[in-house]
C-alpha cells in the first residue's frame, strides 16, 4: 500500500514537473508576459474595476461582482458545511445527558478578562474588515471568520454554554440562512428589476441617493458581503460548537 502510494505520488509529481519545467512553454514565475497575465481578462479587471464598480480593491470587485455567482456558491459551500457537520455529528440527548468532562471547566480570570477586553475589539475589527473591504484587503468572508472567531473565543475562554447564550444554535442557523437570502436577494432584486441575476447595476433605480449603476454596484457589493459575513460568522461558530462538543452542544472545550 505504501509502495503504491509512493508510486502514485511520484508519478503525479513527475507529471506536474513535466508541465512546469518546459522553458519555452510554461511561463516563468512572475513574468508579466505570461498568457494569464497578458490576457484581455486580467487586463480588463485591472483597468476597469474602478470604472465599472468604483471599488479600488480589484479582488473584492471581481469576487463580489464580476464573479459574484461564484461567491454566492462559496457562501453556499460554507452553508453546506455547516448543515453537513450538523447532520453528521449532532446528537440529541435530552434530559440527564452527561456533560462532556473537560480538563478545566472553571474559567480563568486572566484569560476571561483579556477576552472581555479583546472581544469587542475583535468584533469591531471584523466589521472594519467587512466595511473597508472595498479599499483594502478584506471583505465579507474574512470579516465573517474574524467575527466567528470572536464568538469562538468566548466559548474557549469561558464555556460553550456562555457563548450559546449570546449566540444560540438556532440563531446561528437562522443567521446563516439569512446571509444566503441576502445574497440571493440582491440577485433576485436585479432579476425583478429586469436585468440578469446579480446584475447589481440596476439596483440604483430603487436605491435612494444612488444615481449611477457604478455606485449601485459599489453598495450592492457591500450588501452582498454583509450577507457572506452573516453566513460565515454563524457557520464558523456552529462548526466550532459541534466539533468541540462531539455534537452535544453543551459545555465542551
Amino acid at each position: 500500500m505504501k509502495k503504491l502510494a509512493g508510486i502514485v505520488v511520484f508519478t503525479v509529481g513527475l507529471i506536474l514537473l513535466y508541465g512546469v519545467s518546459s522553458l519555452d512553454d510554461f511561463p516563468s514565475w512572475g513574468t508579466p508576459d505570461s498568457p494569464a497575465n497578458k490576457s484581455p481578462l486580467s487586463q480588463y479587471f485591472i483597468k476597469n474595476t474602478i470604472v465599472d464598480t468604483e471599488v479600488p480593491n480589484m479582488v473584492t470587485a471581481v469576487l463580489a461582482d464580476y464573479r459574484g455567482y461564484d461567491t454566492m456558491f462559496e457562501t453556499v459551500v460554507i452553508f453546506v458545511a455547516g448543515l453537513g457537520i450538523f447532520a453528521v455529528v449532532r446528537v440529541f440527548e435530552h434530559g440527564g445527558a452527561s456533560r462532556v468532562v473537560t480538563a478545566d471547566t472553571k474559567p480563568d480570570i486572566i484569560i476571561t478578562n483579556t477576552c472581555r477586553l479583546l472581544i469587542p475589539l475583535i468584533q469591531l475589527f471584523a466589521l472594519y474588515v467587512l466595511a473597508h473591504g472595498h479599499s483594502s484587503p478584506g471583505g465579507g468572508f474574512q470579516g465573517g471568520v474574524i467575527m466567528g472567531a470572536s464568538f469562538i473565543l468566548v466559548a474557549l475562554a469561558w464555556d460553550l454554554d456562555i457563548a450559546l447564550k449570546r449566540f444560540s444554535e438556532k440563531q446561528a442557523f437562522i443567521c446563516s440562512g439569512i446571509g444566503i437570502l441576502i445574497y440571493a436577494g440582491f440577485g433576485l432584486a436585479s432579476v425583478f428589476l429586469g436585468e440578469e441575476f446579480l446584475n447589481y447595476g440596476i439596483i440604483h433605480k430603487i436605491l435612494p441617493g444612488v444615481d449611477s449603476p457604478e455606485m449601485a454596484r459599489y453598495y450592492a457589493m457591500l450588501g452582498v458581503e454583509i450577507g457572506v459575513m452573516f453566513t460565515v460568522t454563524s457557520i464558523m461558530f456552529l462548526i466550532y460548537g459541534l466539533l468541540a462538543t462531539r455534537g452535544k452542544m453543551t459545555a465542551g472545550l
Partner: protein
Amino acid sequence: MEEFIQSRFNYWIYVILMMIGLWGMISKNNLIKKLIGMSIFQTAIILFYVSVAVKSETANIPILPHHGHDYSPKIAFAHAVSDDHENGGHDDHAGHQAHPVGPKIPDPDGYANPLPHVLMLTAIVVGVATLGLALAITQKIYREYGTLEEDQLLEKVRADDHG
C-alpha cells in the same frame, strides 16, 4: 541555470508540497493525518495559483491607491469598452490619445493579476469547509469505532460486514 531555478522555483516547491500532501493523504494511517495532508495538498494548489498571478518587480498588490475619484467613470467606461474590443485590450495608449482629457487608466502591468486571487479565496473557503466536514466525519467515526487508525478501522468495518 540560476535563471532557470529562479524562474521556476515557486512551481517546483509547489509540486513538492503537493507530493507531500498527496502522500500524506494516501499513505498515512491516521485519519487526522490524512486531513492534514489534504490541507497541505490544497494549500499547495493555492500556492500555484497565487504564483501564476505574480508579476515580479513591476507589480503592486491589486488594490488601487484610492486618491479620491480621479477615474472618471462615465468616460472611462465607454473608453474601456471600445478599447477592449477594437484593439483587443492590449493598447491603452491609443485610448489616452483618443481622450485627451481622458481618465487615468491603471497600468495593467502595475498590478498583480487579481483573478487568481479571487479564485483562491473561493478555494480556501472550500478547503476549510471540506476540512470541517471531514473532521466531523472523523469524530463520528471515532464515536462509532473508537479509533482513528485506518487499518484498525477497516478491520472493524469488515467485522461489521460479516456480522
